[in-house]
């Protein structure tokens, strides 16, 4: 069965779905008995999810105005 260090080492492959079936069984067996690794893996997933969910940062109003003007200039007619 895996230990916590192995879970940490393979976390990247786990999160990116690169673990082979045999490896996944070793991992599940460990997770079933290790609340620390369950919590840690959740946190890694949450970290990635937060990065994906960063709010948009619109441009400064004057920048936006300039870009809109350039867009209008392109418009046919």
């Amino acid at each position: 069965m895996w230990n916590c260090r192995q879970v940490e080492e393979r976390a990247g492959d786990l999160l990116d779905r690169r673990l082979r079936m045999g490896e996944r069984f070793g991992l599940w067996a460990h997770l079933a008995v290790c609340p620390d690794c369950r919590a840690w893996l959740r946190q890694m997933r949450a970290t990635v999810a937060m990065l994906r969910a960063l709010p948009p940062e619109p441009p400064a109003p004057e920048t936006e105005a300039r870009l809109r003007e350039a867009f209008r200039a392109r418009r046919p007619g």
Partner: protein
Amino acid sequence: MTDEATMLARLRAGDEAAFTTLVRAEHGRLVRLARIFCRGSRATAEEVVQDSWLAVITGLDRYTGEARLGAWIAGIVVNKARTRAARDGRMVPFPDLAREELAAPAQPGDPPGFAEDGHWAGRVDPWHAATPERLVADREVLRHLLAAIETLPPAQRAVVTLRDIEQHDGPEVCRMLGLTDGNMRVLLHRGRSKLRAALDPMLRAPHLRRGKTPAGDAGAVAEGATGS
């Protein structure tokens, strides 16, 4: 028609509202992307991105739709940022930086680290149960996360930004930075681990009692992927 096809059609028809929506949604992300190649300078990255928007406007009719619209625009930004960095003699040598960062001793697990027997050296306390979207909507959490991203070593910051924030696929990120797939994945893992460790003190929820999670939940944790 997909959202993207609709957006493209509206842009080509000269729909200014559609253009404004696109700029507001993408501008910040593109500046973050450009900064990777501009040694962190926000001012240079802003110029590069504004220049790129102008190239998008003039290139709309030539865009073939082979790449996704977002990927096409990101490609323009990367090209312009690289050209600008080369002109300024400030190219970032990512393969060299990656080698340096990977040669530095890994800090497996970050805090809490590991005991001799391979178990965590301390407890891993669960985090606040709010969704990721709710968490980053909190100004303090957002500020903390953005600051933590800034403190990552440059190659790790670049990989995390491109893979997780910009959501480019692995081969695309390797191509942009000139990295091997293996190196890219180790950098990504180290970067994510550091960010998790940075968020940990803020997001811990000590009031959550341990052991409440059913063991059958383990499979769901293992299966739940973040996509690729």
